[in-house]
């Protein structure tokens, strides 16, 4: 928040600083010492940070005073809202695997970062959030813009710090970055009092990190890995489920090698999309609430389920008690607390996905590799797929409407596969699920979305971070009209920063569509609080200095998309789609994934409810 204290206050502080300056220490000590703010900048550079996203304010001003000295090494991106800065840092992190950094001042600046911090927590995104804090002498006195942000963020950070001494900064920053990026990545917050930023100290960069209580297990237990290998070999209907952990640990190659070695079909969760190429013959798609019928059916029929780096989110499992009733579950996760939390694991393996998969491959090396022919099991899944007609039916345009959302995805997917060099950032809601279903995901880190937290407003600012991290790629934002109206102020940030590679596709149906869909299906079309108006988005974009287009007919979709690709600047396309299109198939909340709605009123059941041997 750009709010500055009263003039008298800042004058008093300046006078104090000047007095300190005159009286401060012997000369040689002064030369070595840096201000806390300088140490913060230096620490960021040492951690390999080149871009930070933030907004200045009173309590973080000393840091901003120091920033210009490091202008060549640290790029500061001024966002329009701290939430935008936080999501941009998340986008940067998710696109690169590096730690994203966002900065805000105390009080409202810090609380505005809470949403992206919570988002990063749920999606295990490496993030360091830096906040200014009132001077240590004012702490606890309800000072202007004082908020207990370490207290507020305790449940949603991996760790957080309140730093009151400049001498502590170098160590704290190193520890914070280490925590954010190691093990199961996550957000770490560093709250630095204004006086700690102003005071001088000699930074010590060589102190060893002392974290005796922080243990990360990378190598899985050999005994468990052997057990897992045996199970996989004996399985008749094995299935691999790849989650976020595969992408985070860079295990896509190992995953593919294992799947191909054994000929095991692979499903990818929302955050696992891209971990396994969907044009591969072993790829069968996404499971869960909006997964394909044949994928969920495969889960219900499989006898061994190897979950790598997924946490069995309720959106994946549906009713956990009836999830994968015939399967022995092998669960690989770097966080021991995820194993056995939602779904019992027959073989628990705590470890890094890449190393565990590599170890599994070594364990199975002596086995004759898969011959490339479709097994009876894969044939069974394909049969289910044909029966329940997945993608094409959902893509088929209802003839009653001039523009169905599926027309947009069909054209967008085609253009993405043709052009190749892309990232896609989606927001939260119907458009997100359609993107997950209807785009062919082929490479890790090309699909970036808010999953666990389901944060509407994520996409536009996250795309800013992705675009800066990947300047040579085209970043497509797919966003609903609801989410777009939450954070579109960051379009101006794109313009100010000269970002050219962001293209926004608004799937505009004039509703908070996912809630509307639930209201239609489960609340008897009681559309409470969901009809949504909006400005003319194309003209809004033009007001930001960005090309805006409006598309109302299917015949215009291709032209708009190819214009966006070729236009060397951001483009916003307002796709005014069929207003009451639904995302199908769908598992009603709390239901079993064996029973899905495949259309309005149409249900498929797997008849599993009275399974012998079901858990």
């Amino acid at each position: 928040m750009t709010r500055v204290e009263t003039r008298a206050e800042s004058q008093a502080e300046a006078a104090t600083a000047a007095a300190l300056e005159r009286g401060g220490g012997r000369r040689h000590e002064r030369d070595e010492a840096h201000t806390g703010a300088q140490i913060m900048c230096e620490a960021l550079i040492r951690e390999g940070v080149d871009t930070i996203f933030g907004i200045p304010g009173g309590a973080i001003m000393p840091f901003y005073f120091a920033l210009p000295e490091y202008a060549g090494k640290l790029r500061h991106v001024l966002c329009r809202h701290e939430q935008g800065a936080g999501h941009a840092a998340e986008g940067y992190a998710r696109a690169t695997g590096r730690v994203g950094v966002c900065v805000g001042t105390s009080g409202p600046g810090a609380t505005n970062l809470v949403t992206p911090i919570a988002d990063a927590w749920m999606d295990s995104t490496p993030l360091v959030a830096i906040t200014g804090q009132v001077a240590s002498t004012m702490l606890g006195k309800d000072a202007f813009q004082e908020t207990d942000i370490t207290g507020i963020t305790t449940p949603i950070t991996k760790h957080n710090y309140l730093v009151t001494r400049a001498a502590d900064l170098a160590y704290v920053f190193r520890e914070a970055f280490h925590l954010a990026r190691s093990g199961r990545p996550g957000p770490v917050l560093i709250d630095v009092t204004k006086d700690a930023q102003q005071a001088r100290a000699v930074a010590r960069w060589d102190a060893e990190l002392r974290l005796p209580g922080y243990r990360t297990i990378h190598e899985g237990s050999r005994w468990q890995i052997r057990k897992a290998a045996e199970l996989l070999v004996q399985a008749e209907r094995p299935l691999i489920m790849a989650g976020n952990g595969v992408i985070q640990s860079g295990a896509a190659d190992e995953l593919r090698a294992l799947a191909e070695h054994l000929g095991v079909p692979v499903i990818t969760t929302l955050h696992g999309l891209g971990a396994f190429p969907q044009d591969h013959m072993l790829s069968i798609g996404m499971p869960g609430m909006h997964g394909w019928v044949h994928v969920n059916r495969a889960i219900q029929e499989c006898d061994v389920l190897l979950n790598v780096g997924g946490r069995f989110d309720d959106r994946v499992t549906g009713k956990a008690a009836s999830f994968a009733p015939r399967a022995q579950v092998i669960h690989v996760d770097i966080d021991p607390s995820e194993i056995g939390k939602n779904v019992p694991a027959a073989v628990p393996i705590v470890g890094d996905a890449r190393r565990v998969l590599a170890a599994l491959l070594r364990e199975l090396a002596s086995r004759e590799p898969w011959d490339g022919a479709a097994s009876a099991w894969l044939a069974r899944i394909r049969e289910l797929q044909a029966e329940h007609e997945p993608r094409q039916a959902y893509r088929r345009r209802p003839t009653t409407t001039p523009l169905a959302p599926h027309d947009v995805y069909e054209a967008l997917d085609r253009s993405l596969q043709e052009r190749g060099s892309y990232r896609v950032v989606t927001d939260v809601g119907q458009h997100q699920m359609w993107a997950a279903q209807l785009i062919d995901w082929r490479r890790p880190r090309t699909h970036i979305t808010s999953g666990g937290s389901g944060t509407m407003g994520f996409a536009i600012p996250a795309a800013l971070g992705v675009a800066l991290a990947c300047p040579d790629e085209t970043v497509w934002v797919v966003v609903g009209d609801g989410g777009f109206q939450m954070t579109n102020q960051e379009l101006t940030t794109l313009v100010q920063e000269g970002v050219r590679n962001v293209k926004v596709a608004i799937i505009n149906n004039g509703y908070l569509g996912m809630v509307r869909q639930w209201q239609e299906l489960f609340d008897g079309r009681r559309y409470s609080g969901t009809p949504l108006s909006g400005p003319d988005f194309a003209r809004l974009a033009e007001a930001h200095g960005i090309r805006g287009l409006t598309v109302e007919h299917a015949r215009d979709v291709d032209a708009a998309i190819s214009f966006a690709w070729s236009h060397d600047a951001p483009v916003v396309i307002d796709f005014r789609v069929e207003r009451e299109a639904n995302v199908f198939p769908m598992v009603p909340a709390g239901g079993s994934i064996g029973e899905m709605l495949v259309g309005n009123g149409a249900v498929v059941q797997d008849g599993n409810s009275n399974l012998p041997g079901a858990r």
Partner: protein
Amino acid sequence: MSHTLVTLMQDRPGVLHRAVSLFRRRGFNIESLAVGHSETPGVSRMTLVVDAEDVEQVVKQLYRLIEVLKVTDVTNQPTVERESVLVKVHAPAANRAPILAVVEAFDARTADVGTATMIIEMTGTPSKVDNFLAVLRPFGIKEMMRGGTIAMTRGVPQQQRQRRRLRSIAAASAYSYTGSNSTPTHDDPPNAQADGVA
């Protein structure tokens, strides 16, 4: 069911808040909590009695806090469990003798005698404290403060293991941010997290 967990953690700012906040948000019910210094400087010891279906999840969540060094579920181990209590009981002259008899029977101590009240201190197993309070209640309890259960496992082998473990923690936890340059020499701590699931 109730589980008694003994937790060792680094004495860093906010650590108790983190632990308690974790219990609240994960919906684990704390029946008793006692925290204090351990024999190792910089290491606090917390005895927790929690009511949880899935105590393994409680332990794993505690381990996610970076200050937490060791969590032991001592529920089914031979332990010494103690709780202290201070009770101010209504004690007009006529009642003093029977109250003192109760005090003697429970190995309690009289901490203060006033004109109409007595303060009694008592230490024992939590169930003995329950009994003691039940016996005193008819006299009229004016004030009462239970100190929370503390627990320690019995026996030599256990202690030796613990001491080895603590030596390694002590080396690593003379904690300050800027600290000394001396290299803490702790062996790679035992695979405590994996133990929970392996």
